[in-house]
């Protein structure tokens, strides 16, 4: 017989030694498949990547030359790689600010809808970009932002805002153009998360606030947002991981789908390491060197996720 108690988290108390042994055995047996799966599909590939990163290897044949840490040495001075690391950080930083602000604003609006149908419809519309092929969306975004006959500049012209027309795909604006694409696509996903989190907050809290005369905005900032802290943290962790590993959109965007590799100005580490490993238009084909990039990527994501969690978890956790 097990008795569950809640004391700072879940714990289990046992009334006899036999039950405790059986429980431990059960835990052990039930975790074996998960651990095996994790080791085979996560740990082993990571170790293998680490191993390959110590070689000079094109990946076409089994001829490999052991060069110890020279790939890592080269990474430290590789301007293109460093540019893609910087880009990845910019996606994390600017992306998370923009996404959180937009998502919170939409959450505020959507949670105030009285009609559930309207609520669902708006969320569905915002989620649609997530369901479309990355290649199609990246190409579409490129067409929208085309300088001479793109939809955006066309619209600005029609509205008499010609002075705002820009060469959106030029070096000066292309990073922002890529970031706006990623925000547009992912914001719907985070809105669904935030709205679901807001919906689970007990109505009694809002009712008390209303009796105290709090406005809906005050209720949102003082009740909804603080109680969604765990979800905001999760969304930031997810966005950090997305920023580093997003591939399809950035691989195609700016390259026009043909004739070009993705411009360095928009590449994150994932895109750059793929192009280094397998080439595309430019046949670089350095699989081992790309493996060292993958290891750096892993370390960077781990550090960032740790820092974000530390920063957010440093405050008080509100339970309800």
């Amino acid at each position, binding site marked *: 017989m097990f008795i569950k108690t809640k004391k700072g988290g879940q714990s289990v108390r046992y009334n006899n030694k036999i039950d405790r042994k059986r429980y431990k055995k059960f835990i052990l047996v039930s975790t074996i498949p998960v651990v095996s799966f994790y080791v085979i599909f996560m740990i082993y590939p990571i170790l293998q990547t680490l191993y390959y990163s110590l070689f000079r290897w094109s990946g*076409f044949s089994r001829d490999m030359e052991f060069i110890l840490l020279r790939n890592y040495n080269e990474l430290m001075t590789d301007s293109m790689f460093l540019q893609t690391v910087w880009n990845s950080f910019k996606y994390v930083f600017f992306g998370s600010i923009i996404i959180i602000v937009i998502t919170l604003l939409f959450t505020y609006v959507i949670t105030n809808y009285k009609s559930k149908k309207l609520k669902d419809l708006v969320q569905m519309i915002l989620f649609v970009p997530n369901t479309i092929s990355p290649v199609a969306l990246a190409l579409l975004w490129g067409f929208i932002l085309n300088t001479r006959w793109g939809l955006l500049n066309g619209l600005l012209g029609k509205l008499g805002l010609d002075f705002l027309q820009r060469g959106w795909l030029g070096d000066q604006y292309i990073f922002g153009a890529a970031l706006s694409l990623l925000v547009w696509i992912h914001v719907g996903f985070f809105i669904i998360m935030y709205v679901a989190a807001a919906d689970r907050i007990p109505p009694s809290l809002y009712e008390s606030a209303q009796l105290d005369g709090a406005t809906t905005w005050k209720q949102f900032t003082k009740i909804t947002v603080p109680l969604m802290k765990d979800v905001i943290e999760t969304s930031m962790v997810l966005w950090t991981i997305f920023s580093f590993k997003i591939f399809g959109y950035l691989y195609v965007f700016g390259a026009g789908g043909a004739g070009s590799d993705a411009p360095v100005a928009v590449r994150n580490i994932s895109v750059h390491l793929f192009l280094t490993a397998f080439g595309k238009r430019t046949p670089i084909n350095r699989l081992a060197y790309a493996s060292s990039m993958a290891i750096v990527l892993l370390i960077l994501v781990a550090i960032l996720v740790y820092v974000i969690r530390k920063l957010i978890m440093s405050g008080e956790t509100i339970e309800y």
Partner: protein
Amino acid sequence: MFKKSNLLLSITLMVGLLLLSSTMVMANESFTYWSMWEKGEPQQKVLEQAIKDFEEQFDVTVNVNWAGRDVVTALKPRFLSGENIDMTDQSGEELYGGLVAGGVAATMNDVLEMSVPNEDATVGDVLIPESYDAYVREDGSLYIIPYNFITSVFWYDKVLFNDLGIEAPETWDEFLEMSEILKDNNIDPVAFGIQTDVYRGYFPYHAAERILGKNALNNAASDPTGEAFEDPRWERVGDILYQFSKEGKDLLMQGYESSVYPAPQMDWVMGMAGTFYCGTWIPVETREAAGENFEYGAFKFPTFEDADGDPTAVETYPIGFSVLKDAENADLAKKFVAFFLQEKYAKQWVEVTKNMTPRAGVEAPAELADAKKLLDNANSTFRLYDGVQADQPEWYASVFLPLASEVLLGEINGEEYAEKMRTETIKFWENKNN
């Protein structure tokens, strides 16, 4: 007793069937071909028909995978898993930069000696030497047999040029005169998009071919001391590029700093620009948008006085077959290569795909007649990007293309271009620990 005899009979029948089927397999040879074309493309249709004919004529099987343009990337894991792939095809640069550099391609010199089926000639006899000459290594080895031939030229609309009284220019001065007339008629001289690598790399390497000659760029890229760029002729190359820029003579179309494929080619056929530099695939891609009254003309990259490059030289950009080094059925694959170079398939290639064939004596499509003439009149050829994209891909990506952007955007002048090519090349090689 009945059961025993029944069992015996079954076993005998099964063994017999097994032997029969293995004999049939042995009789029917096969090879595996991974193609760069995708199902439904005109090129795929011509190849598919030839494969069908080959299978019927020689009672063999060709296992084809229409893998698409990223075929070399797709092949990589197959090689590592030990799967046998006998043959693939791609552009010369991608084959040389990938399979040849990776040491997995077989030499194809012997194919040149093979007879073309149903014809009294060898492959070497029927191929235009210019279609593969630039790809013969110093030791004489050749790793590609072309079946499609591309070259890059300036394209223009003959109807428009006639209306404006412009002759296709030959020299740089004539090119500038042409540009002035176009500008006077509110037409940008050259359609261009700097964000697309293909477009961005064309002028810097063509200018180098004209001013310094074949292999100069490739040799300079491979020189870790950067000394090659101290040659004053590189400054002249930079000056030419600077003249293209908006800060120079402003020859490139408005908004070129942010224009990406396919915008420049569409702007050109819609009459916003007078010329467009691109490969011989462009009429196929633009025919529909160009309309009936558009007549394709072509001229080569202009020539310069007192330059060391061959003024008649044009680019060689073959697409062809490459048999793999460890191919189990290399002989059969090579037999197909020779088979596909028959005149009837070359004619089909031209007719269906509207591309040029490297086979001598087969007319080019009407849209490519000018380009073909330039090729016929060329005394020499050079590789796409002078071979640096394949031979020094990282230098091409991290030094050549970024500096091409800077000078074509007018951010640096000719002198600065030459100096930055030198210093960035030194830095590049210093950073290369591998």
